[in-house]
């Protein structure tokens, strides 16, 4: 009887997996519209490891990739190596693994929810909602490392629960192994995973104590695995990364302090009400709750072009009804939920997920708070289940028909708006520049690369950031030739760097009044760097203009004689 019942569940789960795969692979190389510099850096470093066993700077099998001075985590690069070997160095190779891991996460998440609540309907609903979640799709179709790390987070939790509820000691080793992998996969998890693990241990304290020997051995195994990473975690590169991206490196502007002091009359007033503990404390509280705000979840999402979807937030508009229903369900059955350790864990999970985002400088951050999507999907599934149960209970009344039609129309509209926005409206709006998807570099390389031997020098402007990565990537430039030439130039200690150049290529700011004197040189840069009015036909010629999808000029390519 049990097997008969199980079959359709697994069939449904299989269907959800196929849906998740389809949504993550459909038009994967063209939406998002182009690679961003992180993706190009991951892929080129994987290519470099594949060809030479060293990163772009010639470091042998490193555990942190210096890249553009942001010291990337190593796991995604090493996982990419076989993919680049099979598929080659191209867009599909970069986005293949995040999409695959993203779809696999949907299955693991379903099994995790089933393990938590022993409720297949809830588990399948959670998986379905995750499969179609805009937030999850956004980061599992591109910008890979977070998709890999979150897969390991989910797998780690699932295995921990299996160990707690079952008696298989292998599960705790798999769990610890997965959690350690998150340290190797994504920077933010280095804060989130230990807190999560601590939360799991405290919530299931009694079970852990009853098998403390297994637990301690697994913990020791985890420490051994994490040991090689310690050196990189305290490296000067990581320290400067922390100072650059988090509030620990943030100082209030001197102008603000002077102005406030002068208005405050008495120094004591300034010391009390503008003390860093007060102002930074409020800033952290604000950032924490911003992650739960309707503005972030439903209305607008994030201002960052690489994270946002035009016309909506990180969840569907209709999800706010499900969320409301979920809160209603939980509060009305609070006594029952209070008794369930599993539910306490879900709340802890949701509460700690924004931690990496709140210590960084952005007011909200969908990528750093990515782990929020799992407990949120679970809550949405609780809401959806409540709605389905209400519809199923008793006779189909007029009130019910209205509610069903209303919700379904709202849901279908929200879903359609997402797909229309994601595939058609958002790409041209988020294409340009370093805040967006770095559109134009591929076209630039395709045009310039065949001409490179005709010029003494090719100068590419760095206003859009990271041109060297795209030239290396699209030219498939042999790493063995690049490594001796690799030099990272930083404008100041708080900025990321730029590759100086290789062969005839020079990557730097173009200053046309001075640079136009250079003979037999090809220049590529944004229109403001190469003004048409200043291009003297006796001296130089505009060869080509590359446009952004919205028709604005992206690059001008100018040669001097």
């Amino acid at each position: 009887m049990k097997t008969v019942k199980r079959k359709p569940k697994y069939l449904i789960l299989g269907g959800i997996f196929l849906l998740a795969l389809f949504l993550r692979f459909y038009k994967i190389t063209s939406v998002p519209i182009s690679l961003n510099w992180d993706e190009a850096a991951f892929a080129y470093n994987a290519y470099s490891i594949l060809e030479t066993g060293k990163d772009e700077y010639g470091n042998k099998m490193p555990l942190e990739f210096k890249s553009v001075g942001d010291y990337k985590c190593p796991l995604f690069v090493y996982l990419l190596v076989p993919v680049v070997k099979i598929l080659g160095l191209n867009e599909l190779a970069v986005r293949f693994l995040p999409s695959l891991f993203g779809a696999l996460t949907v299955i693991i998440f379903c099994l995790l929810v089933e393990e938590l609540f022993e409720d297949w309907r809830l588990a399948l609903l959670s998986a379905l909602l995750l499969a179609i979640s805009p937030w999850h799709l956004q980061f599992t179709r591109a910008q890979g490392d977070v998709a890999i790390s979150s897969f390991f987070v989910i797998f780690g939790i699932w295995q921990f629960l299996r160990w707690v509820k079952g008696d298989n000691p292998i599960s705790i080793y798999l769990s610890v192994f997965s959690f350690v992998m998150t340290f190797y996969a994504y920077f933010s998890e280095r804060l989130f995973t230990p807190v999560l693990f601590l939360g799991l241990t405290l919530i299931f304290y009694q079970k852990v104590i009853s098998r403390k020997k297994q637990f301690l051995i697994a913990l020791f195994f985890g420490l051994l695995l994490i040991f090689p990473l310690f050196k990189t975690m305290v490296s000067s590169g990581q320290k400067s990364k922390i100072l650059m991206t988090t509030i620990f490196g943030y100082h209030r502007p001197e102008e603000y302090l002077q102005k406030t002091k002068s208005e405050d009359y008495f120094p004591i007033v300034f010391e009390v009400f503008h003390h860093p503990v007060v102002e930074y404390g409020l800033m952290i509280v604000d950032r924490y709750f911003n992650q739960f705000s309707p503005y972030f979840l439903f209305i607008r999402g994030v201002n960052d072009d690489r994270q946002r979807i035009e016309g909506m937030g990180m969840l569907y508009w209709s999800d706010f009804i499900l969320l409301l229903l979920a809160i209603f369900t939980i509060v009305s059955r609070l006594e029952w939920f209070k008794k369930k350790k599993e539910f306490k864990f879900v709340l802890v999970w949701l509460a700690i997920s924004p931690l990496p985002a709140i210590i960084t400088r952005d007011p909200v951050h969908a990528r750093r708070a990515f782990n929020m999507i799992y407990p949120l999907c679970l809550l949405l599934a609780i809401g959806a289940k409540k709605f389905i149960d209400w519809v199923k209970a008793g006779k189909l009344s007029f009130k019910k028909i209205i509610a069903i039609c209303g919700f379904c129309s709202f849901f279908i509209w929200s879903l359609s708006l997402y797909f229309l926005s994601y595939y058609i409206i958002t790409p041209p709006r988020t294409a340009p520049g370093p805040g967006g998807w770095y559109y134009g570099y591929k076209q630039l390389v395709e045009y310039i690369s065949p001409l490179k031997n005709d010029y003494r020098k090719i100068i590419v402007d760095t206003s859009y950031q990271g041109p060297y990565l795209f030239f290396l990537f699209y030219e498939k430039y042999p790493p063995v030739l690049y490594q001796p030439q690799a030099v990272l130039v930083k404008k100041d200690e708080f900025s990321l760097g730029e590759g100086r150049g290789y062969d005839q290529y020079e990557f730097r700011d173009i200053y046309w009044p001075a640079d136009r004197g250079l003979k037999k040189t090809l220049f590529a840069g944004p229109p403001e760097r190469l003004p048409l009015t200043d291009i003297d036909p006796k001296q130089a010629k505009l060869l080509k203009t590359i446009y952004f999808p919205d028709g604005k000029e992206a690059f001008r390519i100018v040669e001097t004689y």
Partner: protein
Amino acid sequence: MNKKIILVFIALIFTSPWFWIFQRNYKEILNFNKSDFYQINNPILISEINTFQGETRLAEMGFLGKLIINKYTWFFKDVLTQFLESYDFHYLFMEGDLNLLKSTRSSGPLFLSLFPFVCYGIYRIFRRKKYPLLFLVLVSPIFGCLFRQHYETLSRLPFILSLTLMAAIGIVAFSEKSDYKILKGLFLVFFSFEFLRFIHYYFLHYPFLLQR
């Protein structure tokens, strides 16, 4: 509703940032004109719809674009936006109205220390099945749609008052508990600090801010 709740509710109103600012700038605040009100056919909305529809037409999905993005759906989305904005933590407890005449930008219309009591108050009325009060919290933000401006406080006063009432219910219920003395003391300290911080902004920084 008992006397204690009413007293706390009144005390919370008198100490609320919005109350101090509104009594100072009431002439300017109430001096709104017709263009401040929400218009169904407002040009920004129509232009946004046209842009989106144009983009979908370019992608040869014009029909679908029109079906999903049109005056009715976008109006619905806009109203929903205004409605949901009312529940924004940053607006309610951190910075308040975008208009300097309605906020010092150093605190929201409610003090941060009231946040746990607002939640507790809502929980209490839900558990005691006082649904009309809960309905008030859920429905009163609809007045936020009256004004064109986002995060506008005047139109959200009914909602803010309903949250203040929830806070009063929460504070009274919490104060009646025999234990949690340290937490009660902490709340008093935090609330007093917040009030003094607001007053200091109000008298020392706010006049300069308004001048600028």
